[in-house]
């Protein structure tokens, strides 16, 4: 009985289909039908990850990711504990005291972010390959070159932080295949890829609005090559000073030069800078990427004076104050451009009142790692200034129009000067160009002066950790704060961050860096 009556039911069921027909998401095939579609969705799509608006995302401009590893792991800046604010489970104290462990959030965020972009690059390369019939041979080569160059840049960040990392170049790699290569091998891969793709990249300025805005063009690749060579001894054991000079020369030949005014590089409309080499385009109408570092640094009332919100966090360390000669007659002119210190003023030049109407005053010298219970818990530390205030900024001031400067020509001059000195030759001319532009008197172009100059010129730009490591001066800078005995860094283990514990838990092939 059952059977006979079930037959129509079965027919009814069979008549319907259970295939999904998505409407608000679409299969990739639908958008990879033309050369334009391919470029947009395999190459251009990657640029939406260079900046970010969430923790851990983006190369710069966001919190708790790449930029924080570069900055708060060095003696340049710190996020002191201010009473109940900024303790965050000891996160920032660990960064400054170099007592981090493999369980630290920042390392995991950076790892996940950097490898996400690499995995997406691998997918893009596969898509380009499988749709090669749509493209001309030149288009295919150019598109692939751009993706490969982005991927190489991301591998550079990875070896800089983590040393030996897995080299994954295909989206089909299985989990077992993911094993570490040596730092030297990944370094060589990045160099080879950038060198191979260099001729195929557009020889165009990437910071001016137009067809190449924000993209990885020849000068961007050249800059990264110069950085790879500059740190080659650290990355691979073999110095490459002459190569550094060569790539710096090529950049100069492309027409980059110093802006007459330092601060123009960081203006609201800094797209016209002739000095910037690679930026993250920011525009509160057009893009999503944010600059959260000012928001994180401003005192609450300081930010409120601009109509923004501030988190009253990051500030300069005592080391930075000393190098800048803060509070001395010889204070570097760039201090006032990069830091808020003393009485805070709003855009009209009026003083910003504190909670009881007195002028809000930052106390640069009062800074220490744990400010809880001190009278200057809220006001200690010189704050980040660097970027011109954008009155039109939205989202608490984080969505502003000043493009974030990743690479610029002043760095190129300092790199060339350093490499030249290390080759035993004189680099006074390059060094002076940077000093004089800042309105500072010349100083002998020695290595110690150059290291200081890199901080003076490039503070808040995320280079200090790398520089200290290259100068073999990277060690826990905060000594004698009476709270923690400085950890033993004589083995230099802190020059590499640990492979994040959560990542190793999922991939037992990965070996931890020594010392962790």
């Amino acid at each position, binding site marked *: 009985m059952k059977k006979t009556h079930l037959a129509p039911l079965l027919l009814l069921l069979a008549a319907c289909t259970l295939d999904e027909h998505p409407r608000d998401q679409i299969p990739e095939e639908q958008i990879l039908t033309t050369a334009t579609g391919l470029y947009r969705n395999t190459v251009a799509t990657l640029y939406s990850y260079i900046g970010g608006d969430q923790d851990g995302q983006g190369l710069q401009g966001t919190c708790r990711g790449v930029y924080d590893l570069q900055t708060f792991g060095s003696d340049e800046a710190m996020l002191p504990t201010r009473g109940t604010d900024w303790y965050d489970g000891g996160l920032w104290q660990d960064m400054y005291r170099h007592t981090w462990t493999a369980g630290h959030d920042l390392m995991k965020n950076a790892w996940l972010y950097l490898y996400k972009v690499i995995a997406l690059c691998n997918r893009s390369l596969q898509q380009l390959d499988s749709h090669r019939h749509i493209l001309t041979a030149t288009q295919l080569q150019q598109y692939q070159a751009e993706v490969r160059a982005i991927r190489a840049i991301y591998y550079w960040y990875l070896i800089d932080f983590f040393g030996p990392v897995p080299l994954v170049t295909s989206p089909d790699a299985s989990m077992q295949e993911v094993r570490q290569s040596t730092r030297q091998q990944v370094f060589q891969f990045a160099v080879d890829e950038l060198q191979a793709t260099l001729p195929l990249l557009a020889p165009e300025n990437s910071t001016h609005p137009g067809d190449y805005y924000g993209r990885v063009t020849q000068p961007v690749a050249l800059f990264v090559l110069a950085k790879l060579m500059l740190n080659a001894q650290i990355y691979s054991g073999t110095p490459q000073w002459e190569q550094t000079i060569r790539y710096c020369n090529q950049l100069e030949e492309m027409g980059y030069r110093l802006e007459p005014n330092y601060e123009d590089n960081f203006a609201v409309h800094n797209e016209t800078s002739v000095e910037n080499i690679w930026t993250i385009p920011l525009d509160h109408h057009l893009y999503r990427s944010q600059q959260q570092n000012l928001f994180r640094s401003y005192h609450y009332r300081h930010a409120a004076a601009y109509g923004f919100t501030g988190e009253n966090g990051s500030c300069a360390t005592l080391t930075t104050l000393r190098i800048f000669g803060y509070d001395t007659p010889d204070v570097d002119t760039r201090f006032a451009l990069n830091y808020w210190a003393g009485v805070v003023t709003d855009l009209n030049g009026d003083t910003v009142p504190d909670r009881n109407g007195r002028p809000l005053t930052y106390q640069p010298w009062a800074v220490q790692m744990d400010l809880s219970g001190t009278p200057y818990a809220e006001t200690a530390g010189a704050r980040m200034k660097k970027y011109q205030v954008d009155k039109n900024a939205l989202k608490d*001031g984080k969505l502003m129009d000043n493009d974030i400067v990743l690479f610029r020509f002043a760095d190129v001059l300092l790199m060339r000067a350093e490499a030249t000195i290390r080759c035993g030759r004189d680099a006074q001319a390059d060094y002076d160009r940077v000093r004089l532009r800042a309105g500072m008197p010349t100083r002998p172009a020695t290595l110690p002066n150059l290291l200081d100059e890199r901080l003076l010129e490039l503070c808040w730009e995320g280079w200090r950790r790398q520089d200290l490591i290259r100068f073999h001066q990277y060690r826990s800078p905060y000594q004698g704060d009476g709270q923690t005995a400085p950890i033993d860094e004589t083995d230099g283990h802190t020059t590499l961050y640990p492979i994040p514990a959560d990542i190793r838990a*999922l991939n037992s092939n990965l070996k931890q860096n020594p010392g962790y």
Partner: protein
Amino acid sequence: MKTQTGTFTSPQGTRHEVRTRKRRMLCTALMVLTVALAASAQEAKRDSIGKTMRVGYSDGKANTVAGAIDKVTEQQMNKGLVISSLDALSGQAAGVQVTSGGNQAAMMTAVRVRGTTSLTGANDPLVIIDGVISDLSTLSTIYPADIESFTILKDASETAQYGSRGAAGVIEVATKKGTESQFHISYNGTIGFESIYKRTRMLDASQFRQAATNLNLDYIDKGGDTDYGRSIERTGFVQNHHVAFGGGTEEANYRASIGMTEHKTVVETNNHRNYTAKVDISQQAFDKRLTVDLGFFGSIQKNNNLPFLQKLMYSAHTFNPTIPNGRNADGGYDQVTEATWINNPNSLLEMKNDDDNGHLNAHLNAEATLLEGLKLRAFASYSYSSVNNAHYYPTFVWSHGEAYRGNNKSEELLTNIALEYNLNLPTSNLQLMALGEGESQKVKGFYTTTTNFPTDAFGYDKLSAGATRLWDGTDSYSTDAHMESMLLRAQYSLADRYTLTGNARIDASSKVGKNHRSGFFPSVSGAWVISNENWMKRLTFVNNAKLRAGYGLSGNLGAIDSYNSMQLVQPNGLVPLEGTSATTLGIIRNANPDLKWEVKRTFNIGLDAAFWNERIALSIDLYRTKTTDMLYVYDVPVPPFPYDKLLANLGSMRNNGLEIGFGITPLQTKDMLLTINMNWSFQSNKLLSLDGDYNGQHLTAPQMKGISSLWGAGFHGASDVVMQIVGQPLGVFYLPHCNGLTTDASGARHYDVSTEKYICGQATPKATMGSNIAFRFRQWDITVQTNGAFGHKIYNGTALTYMNTLSLPNYNIMQGAPEKNIQDQTISDYWLERGDYLNIDYLTVGWTIPTHSRHIQSLRLSASVNNLATITSYSGTTPIINSSVINGTLGIDDKNTFPVYRSYTAGLSIQF
């Protein structure tokens, strides 16, 4: 079957009761009425043994039911103040945990049947209203007085009928239909108020000044003295009105009702309103061979929500009390700019977050008797829901202001067709059923956000007043899911003693991976009515004794959204391209083409018994469930995956439990009746593993992961309190031990915390209890409902935060904190407390007024107090927090609980 609770209040009862009462109403004598009411309670009890009842898709005699089910009829439903139909269920059935509004009014009522069996959050039971697949939020809009009964299917031998959706248990709701009677009309109404009796006590202005001065702090003093906690409070108000009428003949009848509820909670600006209308028509034709039922239900719910409840409570507690209440001289609100986690509570109340939800359902059921014993049933239902959301955050709380409008629309079409065959043999009975079902669910919606407002005057009513529309503030979505199912069911009963039931359901859904489209969910169960055995007949004091056992599989796909098994692209950002800004597309998650159902296997054994004319009734269930192929967002290695999360079926979890329900009637005379009903459930849960093979490779998720953490100043990151640990119950506290307080040189105290963490208790109760005591004396009755939970702990994050004097001067602190002078908020077991509680949910007194009118059938007045008292050792304001739902608030009292209030209501029921 469980016993019936003996409350006496229903002006309308089940179909059976109404008939009973009608017959007896003719006498209209006072005493007779009360006897009738008592009698109907008893008759309902006897019903439970022999009556025909509907469970799942099939009708059957109650004594053949072999699974663990609980039926809560109108008589048992909670009295007192019942705002939502879910409130009516709280504490009435063993193993059913209703964490209702009450002190977490802003939180949706959470319902768990036999606790948590899935990790991914799909733990809400399936709700079926008159055969229509629905959800808890729709159920909450139905007016309680329109509900005839709840039937809760707890074990897989019954839930297997619902296949892939039944794993979290099923709540079947039967609403009232027309009856074959002359015209009748009834009114039900309650009106009442709510009053706060317990709140977190913070320093007043002079204490605040003193504490800040003692610590040498530079604080803001605006000269006022404001209790900001009270500034957001008010006396709550609640009213319900419901009118129902119906009538008809044996062949055709109808029932129609309208209802309205208004609830102004004890927190300013927080209001809920609900309007419902319902019509049911039934007609028989062709010598009663065909019955056609049409049901129509519509509701509109309007809510004024609190946009950021936790921030509001945190602000109300900790805002500087020296700042005078209300607006300042400039017409704005003074803020403590340094206190970034809070705002002036007055200004937060100006934030608007409103929604209105419209819901419409029409369904048609046709039942035709084709031959003797052979029935064909066809059912079709269409539901339409539309939710409009709007919010406006004024410029003085949200820099530049923000307005948002959104609409979400969902449509659901359900059809099924079933053939039933019933063969009656001399000593046995065979029932067969075959059912085919199809379901389609379409969801569409959009929203838009604008910001940069020149004035707050428009609120969310003029979006173009906002100068900027950000790219990520506007979006739309559309999904479309289908499911097709087939169910075969056979039941064989022998000699009224032995019943064997088998179900086999096949579900096929579009949401799972292509290769796993169909899932098979079988179940088998048996019942033995021992009391019908001849050798038992001698034991005349045994009215009923039934042993039952069942085993079955049910599934869970609540965690799977449409398209999760496909690798698709969607807009991922804006980039400069060819001189302009362009949207690019990209993948935004890892896809899992092997996605399938999570499966739960349950073994259940139960005993129902009743003795001495049913004056003692008992029901016991013992169960063991195992969830496998557990859906969970697993961590996967990056690289090679681009994203670190993957929804997959890997792990497993186990639940064991014991449920005991009993009812006793110690006193039963003509004038008096005392009934006591109680249910207990004990449960243990263990997360067995989070490992498995995916794509030929072994995946191991982290063995330990945070579930809930503390929030607020200084708690950003590394503040996990409740963890999910493999090998442990889901949701355990994992904290360092605190050896006490140490005092430093300055006299400040710190927690002396050891470095090692340990597992120090679970967040979910090991036992829960519901008890109902009802006493009647003549026309007066009194009912007390008490619920309790035991064996769990609560982290008092509120005290940890508010006792920290380092919060001064930007945040106020608690009474007693300056004396203790703790300058520390390190998380440890110091503030972990026992969560056991016994809560007197309500006390109701009713008076059934004797009437001599020919037209008034019954008239009853009642008065109730809800949330009468809580007995607990917990030191916070209330232990009734989220101890059941696995989410970011589990087990933590973290500055977000509503002040504790009682409700006082008066009710009137009248039936003509």
